[in-house]
């Protein structure tokens, strides 16, 4: 296990085609450590700025921390603590060096030790060990899904929706922190309730409220693992869109020169439920002056330019309320669900479109390089979060030596496999690369997935030959039968 992790690290360091898919990779990148594990106190956080941004309907946190090696020998393992239920919700952990952008190769793995312990860790491995007394500025960013809960949980159709978020004023850290402050960015200035704590220095009470922004701190030194629970309740009358499952199929056809995309969403609105039943009259009247609502009315899905014949269906057929605008500059798919999706409601649907291979496929000799977005899907102001994502890349029949590389944080890739599937008059079946990911958000829309595979001309000619010969045999058979009949 450790080996693959390191191998992955080095390969991604080379930023070339990585993670040879033919060897079965671990279901998720985890390091196993003895159950009595405690992070060695080798670092201290000289200065830390913790930004909690709640503009979208998931919690996005970024920690900018100046770490200093306080141990005699060089260290390259920095541990990041989470509570066990945060571990379920956290995703997309990324680390970079704030000072210089060209320092790359930070790897992040979940630490696997005592499953019962409430504190779990992610381990950040620095690209180069940090020598004693020296410092480095890390920019750590991640997000929590299903982190915002509506309060009150059930409201009227036209009411404002208020969301509640609970976090800690002291940034959770495995190391003592000398100086830190926590900024909370909120979508609106309407913040009815937030926890206040005793201030320090010249400020007598935290937080300091600046418009739609709350600032806790700066705080003096706090020991490792110090917590001070904070609850913020703020107005956000937008749908809390949660896609529990997304299945994304990308089918490459060399003969058709076509790449077919299909995405199957299981979409929920985790916003506040309706306290009374849905009232069409009020809804229809409210549509004239279209107010903020927490019901999901419409989704815009920007596609790559050149996408064509898009469709939008659900389990009982085509949904006629969709528009697809495609021209030289843009290709936007606008979806209206059959009904406004209120809090607690569900709306599974399927969309798909085609695009020309020339936008995605590069050929060198018999080797092909496919470059597609890992994630497309709705681009909403309020954001969309994805629980489980499964991306299947259907390569043409006979493609082999499949490798892939993605720019998405690899801590959210939980597994991948390569197998065969038989469709459309296949004989051996075409190669399918399946990638599983979890806890993604729509910030990763632009992350790309690069797949490389070999595909020989002979394999390309297989199907036409087989079809031709079988048709011939059928006709000959019929002819023979008719002769017999005479």
């Amino acid at each position, binding site marked *: 296990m450790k080996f693959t992790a390191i191998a992955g690290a080095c390969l991604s360091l080379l930023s070339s085609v990585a993670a040879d898919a033919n060897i079965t990779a671990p279901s998720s990148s985890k390091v196993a450590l003895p159950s009595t594990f405690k992070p060695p106190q080798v670092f201290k956080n000289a200065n830390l700025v913790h930004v909690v941004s709640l503009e979208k309907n998931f919690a996005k946190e970024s920690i900018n921390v100046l770490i200093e090696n306080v141990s005699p020998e060089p260290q390259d393992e920095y541990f990041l603590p989470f509570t066990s239920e945060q571990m379920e919700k956290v995703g997309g952990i990324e680390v970079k060096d704030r000072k210089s952008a060209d320092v790359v190769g930070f790897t992040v793995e979940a630490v696997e030790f005592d499953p019962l312990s409430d504190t779990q860790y992610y381990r950040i491995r620095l690209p180069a060990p940090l020598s004693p007394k020296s410092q480095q500025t890390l920019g750590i960013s991640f997000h929590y899904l299903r982190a915002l809960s509506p309060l009150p949980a059930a409201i009227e159709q036209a009411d404002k929706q208020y969301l509640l978020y609970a976090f800690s004023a002291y940034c959770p850290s495995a190391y003592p922190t000398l100086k830190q402050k926590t900024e909370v960015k909120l979508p609106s200035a309407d913040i009815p309730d937030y926890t206040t704590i005793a201030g320090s220095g010249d400020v007598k009470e935290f937080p300091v409220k600046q418009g739609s922004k709350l600032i806790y701190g700066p705080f003096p030194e706090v020991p490792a693992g110090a917590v001070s629970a904070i609850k913020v309740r703020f107005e956000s009358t937008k749908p809390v869109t949660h896609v529990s499952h997304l299945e994304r199929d990308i089918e490459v056809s060399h003969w058709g020169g076509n790449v077919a995309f299909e995405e199957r969403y299981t979409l929920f609105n985790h916003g506040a439920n309706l306290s009374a*039943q849905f009232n069409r009259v009020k809804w229809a009247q409210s549509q004239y002056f279209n107010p903020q609502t927490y019901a999901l009315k419409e989704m815009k899905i920007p596609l790559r330019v050149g996408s064509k014949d898009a469709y939008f269906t*659900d389990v*009982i*057929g*085509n949904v*006629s*309320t969709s528009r697809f605008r495609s021209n030289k500059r843009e290709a936007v798919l606008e979806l209206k669900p059959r009904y406004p999706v209120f809090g607690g409601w569900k709306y*599974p649907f399927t969309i798909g479109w085609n695009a020309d291979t020339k936008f995605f496929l590069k050929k060198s000799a018999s080797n092909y390089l496919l470059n597609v977005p890992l994630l497309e899907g709705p681009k909403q102001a309020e954001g969309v979060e994805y629980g489980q994502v499964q991306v299947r890349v259907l390569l043409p029949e006979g493609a082999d030596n499949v490798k892939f590389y993605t720019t998405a944080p690899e801590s959210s890739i939980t597994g991948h496999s390569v197998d065969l599937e038989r469709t*459309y008059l296949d004989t051996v079946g075409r190669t399918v690369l399946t990638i599983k990911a979890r806890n993604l958000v729509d910030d990763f829309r632009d992350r790309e997935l690069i797949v490389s595979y070999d595909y020989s001309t002979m394999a390309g000619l297989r199907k036409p030959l087989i079809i031709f010969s079988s048709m011939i045999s059928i006709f000959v058979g019929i002819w023979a039968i*008719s002769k017999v009949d005479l």
Partner: protein
Amino acid sequence: MAVATDASSAPMELLVSVGKNQSTKTLLRVLILCFIAAAAVASRLFSVIRFESIIHEFDPWFNFRATKYLVAHGFYDFWNWFDDRTWHPLGRVTGGTLYPGLMVTSGAIYHALRALTVPVDIRNICVLLAPAFSGLTAFAAYLLTNEMTTSSSAGLLAAAFMGITPGYISRSVAGSYDNEAIAIFLLVYTFYLWIKALKVGSVMWGALCALFYGYMVASWGGYAFITCLIPLHAFVLVCMGRFSNRLYVAYNTWYALGTLASMQIPFVGFAPVSTSEHMPALGIFGFLQLVAFLEYVRSAVPSRQFQTFLYVGLGGVFGVALLGLVGLTTGGYIAPWSGRFYSLWDTSYAKIHIPIIASVSEHQPTAWPAFFFDLNMLIWLFPAGVYMCFQKLEDEHVFVIVYALFGSYFAGVMVRLMLTLTPVVCVAAAIAASQLLDTYLVYKSPVAPEAKEEEVTDGTAKKSKQSALRSTSQPVVGIYTLISKGFIAGAMTLFLLIFVQHCTWVTSNAYSSPSVVLASRMPDGSQHIIDDYREAYQWLRQNTKEDAKIMSWWDYGYQIGGMADRPTLVDNNTWNNTHIATVGKAMSSREEVSYPIMRQHEVDYVLVVFGGLLGYSGDDINKFLWMVRIAEGIWPDEVKERDYFTPRGEYRVDSEASETMKNSLMYKMSYYNYCSLFPPGQAQDRVRGVRLPDQGPVLNTLEEAYTSENWIIRIYKVKDLDNVGRDHALAASFDRGNKKKKAGKKRGPRVLRAE
């Protein structure tokens, strides 16, 4: 299709066995047939092109659901499928109460394609099954007609007619996935095989006929038409003194094997020996044995008196058998005719006794425009063709005549039976048209004959007057002048062109809308799709609990089962009149009466269809009287039709409406909250075209759960018992009072609770 016709080219080579360039002829025929089949398929695709590949109106949704079940669970589970999601709480023994032919057919096609690793969706198979089979039907019509006439063009004409006649298209457009989709092909093909068996008198053809008859029985309740027509044909032949061993062999093979085959279908079971519909077949079976015996004896014993005696005896036995049959029926050993079937003879029967049957629009009698609409010029070529069948009255022509008479009678009684008439119309019309064209499309003209033939031909005329038709007494000479040829040929071509135009127009305008999706034209002429049904069904499917019982009028049962996937109380398979009447009562009574009924049946949601906003006339208020009548049939004291009319006997929904009407659940559910959509005094029902009272109805035991965008579908949630134990009227009025009082400061306490 191409493959099929290729395969069929072999027998056709047999047919066209003269002429040295017969192979080119065959090739031409194959090509023409392929084109006809293609045209037949293409002309049925309007709805797919306009809307999408979607299953149409009501029954197809059940067939579709059943097919999906078959594909998912396999044949044996399907065969004994007990469906507890319909007719709650009774459930339905679906496997034993349906005609499996359709589902099995499309299931087989599905698995065949899967074997070829063609990943086709089962829905698309179901949608396109009917057009595909219409191509086959055209081919079957070709074969049947070729049995009737020697003219080589008649068959092709018949195929073309069959392919595009609206009378058949009406039930076989893409998406109307109903039993008729395959049944008509089977009907025509069975008849073809019957004629073939009768002509050749071979057991093989008879067995084939029985085989397809079995398939037909497995596919459509209309098989009774074959079951009655073939014996009738046989009987008529015997009465015409045309008994022959060919008839004997063909009929007995068909009857024995066919009856056995039909009894394999659970839904049919022992009906072939225990119900009156099937008695003619049985009777003729016995009758033929007698006749055969007597024929044998006559050939053996050459005595005049003996013969007469035997004939008398024969008649006596036949009469006795008939009396016995009547006796058994009255004695109850043989089930009398089932209602649907009986209402064909006693046409006023259904109206009085079985309102459910009478309430179905396609069970209404047929007005003449419908005939012309569905058959256009064929309707007058048809009698001509029948007349020509009298020219040389072979056995097969007798069949056409008998079929024509009974087919047209049935079609006149019931609109939907236009379907069974259409094939014979196509055949007969094709015979007539081809004879016309053959006469007027020959280039070389005969020379004017001398006068001396006259008296000879007169003599022949006198002789042949007795047996043959008077019109055919003279020998054929042909048409002399090119003018007359050109004139008639031109006229016929014009008519045929108009016919094609007509068929296309009718198909695209009348028969191509999948009544699930409605299309309306925007002011700018663009098409606007009204998708309320699916909107509401999808809402039900996603946002109600898996086993929420939906109460609606039976028309929508299949759609709810298919699209919303929720249990229903009643559906379009109207096997239990009482249960339907219960729903009718719940809909037509006052809330206080309906609520206990709904509680007893564990109803969670009630679904009504309301067209008032859009002017959609097929809504529940317009069907309401049928609900009342059906309920009245069971509870004459509690539901009375006259109470729903105004004292002046009008059926009104506005402020003049009768009290019973205003208090009925259906009325309340349709108009609840409706007037609040309009400025005061403007509330209007666009179907009934009336102004509605400003004070809308008040619902106590139900609450509005969902209303679709154009208000076509309204879904109500049945309230649970009040948890303080008040009755709903009290509770509701209390709530209303509250709402008015503290609407403003509702948020205050909530926020406190939040902390």
